[in-house]
């Protein structure tokens, strides 16, 4: 399936943990597979799959909250060991990822869909049930937050 990477990236954006994102993606792909026969009825399979992924991950997050489960994932890199410049660059990129983790779910998704997957507002609106103006506001907020946090980190680095 050509868009399975997109599903995975969205799942990972929401669930953070790689393992969980992989499981979620697998589940979604299985469900799609089971629906194989009448999949032609949906005129946009990708949008349909993305919506499924979104709902699935949000459910997961909700049940995780309800079960008071801890966020368990092991793919946080140790960012204190970098000495070389190249590693430092990668480090600041990781930082962006971490900033994005702190955003509210909706902004996370919008930023993911827009800036990573390059979806247009109509597609995002369809996926998230939002009006374009609302998306624009949330997107602006998310981008500004990322920038501000990035600048904070930057000035800490200098000082």
């Amino acid at each position: 399936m050509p868009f399975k990477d997109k599903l995975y990236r969205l799942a990972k954006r929401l669930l953070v943990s790689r393992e969980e994102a992989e499981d979620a993606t697998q589940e979604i792909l299985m469900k799609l597979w089971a629906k194989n026969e009448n999949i032609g009825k949906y005129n946009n399979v990708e949008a349909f799959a993305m919506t499924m992924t979104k709902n699935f991950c949000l459910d997961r997050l909700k049940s995780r909250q309800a079960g008071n489960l801890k966020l368990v994932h092991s793919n946080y890199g140790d960012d204190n060991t970098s000495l070389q410049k190249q590693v430092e660059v990668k480090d600041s990129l990781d930082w962006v990822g971490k900033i994005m983790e702190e955003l509210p779910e909706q902004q996370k998704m919008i930023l993911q869909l827009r800036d990573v997957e390059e979806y247009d507002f109509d597609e995002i609106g369809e996926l998230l049930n939002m009006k374009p103006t609302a998306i624009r506001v949330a997107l602006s907020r998310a981008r500004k937050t990322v920038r501000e946090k990035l600048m904070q980190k930057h000035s800490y680095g200098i000082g």
Partner: protein
Amino acid sequence: MELDRIEKLLEKYLEGSTSIVEEKELRAYFAQENVAAHLKQYAPMFQYFSIAKEERYTKELPLKKRNINYKWLSIAAMAVLLFGIYFGKEYQEKKEAEYAYNETKKALTLLADNFNKGTEKVAYLNEFENTKQKIYNKN
């Protein structure tokens, strides 16, 4: 690419009103080496987005066996059954024919045996005839 334009685009970007094409332009600008010093802080953001897009789903999907299509399976079974009945019948007919042949052969053998017995008796009769001729000839 003039700095003016990038700055303007950045501003628009933060307001969420850039188009996809303009965002691509920004990403391209920050992907290259000579980024203006005062804009360097934005670089990780755009670079991160580019890199994030490269992430792939690498886990193998456990291949699920395709559901057996029961409709076609039943049709196939039906065909096999019909073939079975058809050829079975033919086989049975062949067996019956063989049985009939054997029975006929047996009957014919019996008949032949009896015929042979008959000829033996006729041989006696011949003897009788011969003797009778001898007697006649003497007289």
